Structure formats: structure tokens, C-alpha cells
């Protein structure tokens, strides 16, 4: 712009003033606190933080702890079941709803409502449904299937599966919504061309449409994966980590060691491991997104580059009967 050279510093001063809360948050919460945790993980702190330096001893203790290794194993199992379950179910729901079904708005509302509920409420409902004495098991046995067994919530080897079922119920609507937004963005002429060539719809989905949905899948995957690392509420509500240690998870391990067992150094080491896990999950996705954004910015004129919405807003293809969620 043609502003005189004395203007920019002033204009920046006011903008910076306005951004002070953000700068403070970033430096205090997202840099300072994280750095503090990393530092404490290298100390011998127990009840109170101590400023000594013991190298990686807390990490050795951590991975010697059966409770921690069990937590990690449980998280991995839960994560695999939860992510695959949500992606498969969410994809099926999205594709079927995309086939111009009647009552689309109502169906979408039904599939997404669990996502509006808290993980605590989710855990409590499923705790009741899976209750071996009075829940689904006894109900189905009452129908005459005396041998029916569905006591996973009290079985050490199956409890993570039970928790994963509850979590898939809660979150697969999210995947459906994300993928549906992606499907609605697919160019209509592609469907025309496929129809003229007589290609059956499932082939079009499998070979052409789904590969185009890569970014939507990646977003869904990252969101679910980060949710797996954070998983806490649903476990506390559903099983409190039991039976025994069978559904302990890392986030719960950290909270317990911070506030119940007075093991700050150990808890910080555990949270550092979680942090690294998240960053490892995040890095490739952020990199790919950054590249895509730069490519778009180059291709489009400067004014249009900003029009690319980062959230799936209005579908580009007019949705048949897209009444609302």
C-alpha cells in the first residue's frame, strides 16, 4: 500500500496489543508448560517438582512398569478397533446416504447424535447396556438363547473391545459427516461420464471416488488417532480401568500418577511419550496439508486462494433433500 513509512509500526503495535492474549497463551500453555513437563520428566520429582537431573531414569521406570506397558497395549488395541470401526462404518454410512436416499436429513441426524453426547454419558450408557446381569446378555437369554454370552465388559481379554464398541457408536457419525462432505464435493460430470460408460456405481466409488477422498480420510484418521491418544473419559465412566488393569490407558495413568500417586516425574515422562506419539501422527498430515495449501495458492489467483474453505461448509453439489443434520 501507499502508506507512509511511519504508519506500519503503529498499525502493528495495535495488532500486537490485540494478539497479546494469544501470544501469552502460546508461550505459557503450549510452549512453556510442555517444556516444563519435558524438563520434569528428566528429574526425580515425586510429590513436588525437584530441579535435579537424573537423565532418562524416569523413562526406564516407566517402561518397567507393568501398568504403563499394559496401558500402551490397551491403547494400541483400542486404537486399531476404534479407528478401523469408525472409518468402515462411517464410510458405509456416507456412501449409502450419498446414493440419494429418502429421509437423508433424518438419517444423518440419527447417525450423528451420539457425537453430541459426552464420552462420560457414552461410557455410562454402554456400561448399562453391557451389564452382564441385567443388560443385553440377560435380555437375549430371556428370549430363549440360554447360551448367549456378551459379558465382555467384565472379561479381561475383551473389555477393550467393549469400550471400542461404545466409542465407535459415539464417533462414527463424525466420520460419516466428514466423508459425506467430501463425497458431495466430487464433480458431478464424473458421475455422468461413468453412467454413460455403463460403469456400476460400486466400481466408480472403489476406483475413482474414494481415491479422491484421500484428504477427507486423512483428516478423519488424524482426528480419530488423536482421540485415541487422549482417551480417558469413556474408560473412567465405563470401567474405571478394570477389571484389574485390563482397561488402563495412558491418559489415565498420567492423571493417576499426577494427582493420586504423587509421581510427578514418572507422569511427566509418560506425558512426554504421549506428546511424541501425537507429533509423530501429526507431522506427515501437517506436511501434506501444507503442501496442498501451497499448491492451491499457486494455482489460484490471489483473491480466490482464500476462498478454499478449510471446513466442509456448503456442499458444492446440491444435496437432494439436505434438510439439516
Amino acid at each position, binding site marked *: 500500500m501507499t502508506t507512509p513509512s511511519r504508519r506500519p509500526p503503529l498499525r502493528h503495535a495495535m495488532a500486537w496489543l490485540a494478539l497479546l492474549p494469544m501470544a501469552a497463551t502460546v508461550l505459557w500453555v503450549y510452549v512453556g508448560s510442555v517444556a516444563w513437563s519435558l524438563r*520434569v520428566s528428566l528429574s526425580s520429582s515425586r510429590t513436588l517438582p525437584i530441579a535435579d537431573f537424573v537423565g532418562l531414569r524416569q523413562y526406564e521406570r516407566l517402561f518397567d512398569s507393568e501398568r504403563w506397558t499394559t496401558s500402551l497395549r490397551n491403547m494400541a488395541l483400542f486404537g486399531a478397533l476404534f479407528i478401523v470401526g469408525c472409518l468402515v462404518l462411517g464410510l458405509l454410512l456416507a456412501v449409502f446416504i450419498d446414493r440419494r436416499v429418502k429421509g437423508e436429513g433424518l438419517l*444423518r441426524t440419527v447417525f450423528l447424535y451420539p457425537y453430541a453426547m459426552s464420552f462420560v454419558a457414552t461410557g455410562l450408557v454402554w456400561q448399562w447396556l453391557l451389564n452382564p446381569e441385567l443388560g443385553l446378555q440377560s435380555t437375549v437369554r430371556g428370549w430363549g438363547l440360554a447360551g448367549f454370552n456378551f459379558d465382555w465388559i467384565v472379561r479381561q481379554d475383551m473389555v477393550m473391545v467393549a469400550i471400542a464398541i461404545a466409542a465407535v457408536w459415539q464417533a462414527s457419525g463424525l466420520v460419516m459427516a466428514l466423508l459425506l462432505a467430501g463425497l458431495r464435493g466430487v464433480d458431478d460430470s464424473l458421475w455422468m461420464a461413468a453412467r454413460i460408460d455403463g460403469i456400476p456405481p460400486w466400481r466408480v466409488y472403489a476406483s475413482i471416488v474414494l481415491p479422491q477422498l484421500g484428504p477427507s480420510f486423512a483428516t478423519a484418521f488424524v482426528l480419530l488417532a488423536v482421540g485415541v491418544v*487422549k482417551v480417558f473419559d469413556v474408560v473412567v465412566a465405563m470401567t474405571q480401568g478394570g477389571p484389574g488393569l485390563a482397561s488402563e490407558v495412558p491418559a489415565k495413568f498420567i492423571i493417576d500418577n499426577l494427582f493420586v500417586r504423587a509421581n*510427578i516425574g514418572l507422569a511427566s515422562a509418560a506425558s512426554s511419550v504421549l506428546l511424541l506419539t501425537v507429533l509423530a501422527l501429526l507431522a506427515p498430515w501437517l506436511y501434506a496439508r501444507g503442501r496442498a495449501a501451497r499448491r492451491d495458492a499457486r494455482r489460484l489467483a490471489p483473491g480466490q486462494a482464500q476462498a478454499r474453505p478449510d471446513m466442509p461448509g456448503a456442499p458444492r453439489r446440491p444435496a437432494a433433500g439436505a434438510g439439516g*443434520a
Partner: protein
Amino acid sequence: MTAAVDSRGLGRESLAERRSVRRRRAGRAPTPARIGLYAFLLTAAALFLLPLYVMGVTSVKPMEEIRLGNLFALPVRVTLEPWAQAWLSACTGLQCEGLRVGFANSVAIVVPSTALSIALGALNGYALSFWRPRGAQALYAVLLTGAFIPYQVMMFPLVRALAALGVFGSLPGIVLVHTLFGMPVMTLLFRNYYAGVPRELFMAARIDGGGFWRIFVQLMLPLSLPVAVVAVIMQVTGIWNDFVLGLVFAGSDHLPMTVQLNNIINTTTGERLYNVNMAATLLTSLVPLAVYLASGRWFVRGIAAGAVKG
């Protein structure tokens, strides 16, 4: 596309028409694939609704009926007693004042946290989008990455810092924590929204002599209503559903409804009153469910950005 002329000479048939014909035909004689598709969707819908149904019927049954062990049976005798008990007299520990305590706490937490985090998000988004001070982009990148970091990593240092400020375990403390952790997503939401506002509008306001705050308050805020609605939906449901932050930061006098609900159900001794428990769970879910049903498409809009949190 070439014009399709059919044998009867009706002339041009547009693609839209052809599609609507196909749809009508499909309506008349459903193919097996179509039937399978509906069967899948309806089964899935029934399974998704099942927990809600079970919650509902359990919450209005007396305990004698629940002990019979048929989860799906409709109540023989409908009673609202469990709802009254959940709201007025359910116990957490030695206190038996019901969920209304947690409800009041959650309202007291959600209202200021939502207002504050949206105000800051709008301001950040505005400054980042239009003024672009040097170095702010780098801060923003760190902020966004921070949205993905598990709370547990920042939790203990924050507890100590808030304790040093004298607000740990207080209402201002938990409001501050929600504002801090809500900032990445709120900033992202408003920044992306302002990125779609034509820059010429901003430049025109500058030329007319508008300053930083005047352009924000008089021009940008009135334009922000749609994104503000999305932000309110996201923050109200997100903060209402929060568990771990309330558990750690709110203090025993301000425990939100979710934490109280969990305490009622999971730490009670003696016979478990499943009907009261389910009434309590439904009561706690009513606010976010109402927001969801009332907001419809707006809720979905917030999802991609909102799911970053949590």
C-alpha cells in the same frame, strides 16, 4: 454434452430431467441393491438409536421391573420418580442434592467460557487475517499444533501456575482453562472465516480512516454472525461435555455436571439404582442434544474444526 433426442422426438432431455426420471423409476420398482441399501441404513439407524431408547425406558421403570432383566421391555408402570430423584436428591458422597448442583455449575462454567473464548477467537482471527503483524503467523502455527496435544502434557504446570495465581479450583480458574484450551479452534474458525471476507472491504475501511478497533467492532463483528453461531454451538457442547478439565481444575465446589454424573453412578455404594442412573445420564445429555437438534446443519459445519478439540 450433446442434446439427446429420443425416438418420439420429444427433443432435448436435460441431465437433470434424466436423473429425475431415473429416480422416479427407482421409486416405482426398487432394485435388490436399493432394498439392501435401505435395509442397511435402517438397521444401522435402529442400532444407533438403541442406547437412547434403552436409556429412556430404563429411566421410567421402577427397579422391580428392571430386575427382571429385559432391557428392551416397555415399562408396565411408568414412573417419573427416578427423574425427580436424579435431579433433586441423588448422592455424590455424602451430599444428596441431586444433579441440579452440577447443572448450575456447568451453566456457570459454560456461559463465561463460551463468551470469552469466542471474543478472543474473533479478535485473534481478525488481527491475523487483516493486520498480519510480523511473527504472528509463527505463533498461530504453534497454537494450532497445540490443539492436538493431550491436555495431560500441560496439566500439571497449569495447575501450579493457577495455584500461584490463586485461582486453582475456582470458577475463574476453570473458565480461564477453557478459554486457553478453546483458543486454537476458535482462532482457526474466525481466521478462516475472515479469510473469505474480501480484502477490499477492509482496505476501504482503512482509507475511510477506520482504526484497528473501529473496523473490528463496527465492520467485522456484524459480519461475523454466521461463524459466531457455529462457534457458540461448538463451545457450548464442547465445554458442557468436558470431563477431565472440570475434574482437575474446577475444584469440589464447581464440579461440572459430567463429573458429578460420573460420581453419582460410579462411586455410589449399596444397590445401584439403574433407573436413576439413566435418568441422570439423560439429564446431563439434554443440553448438548438440544443444541444439536436445534442447530442442525450448523453443528455439522463446526465439526471439522471442532473435532480438533476434545
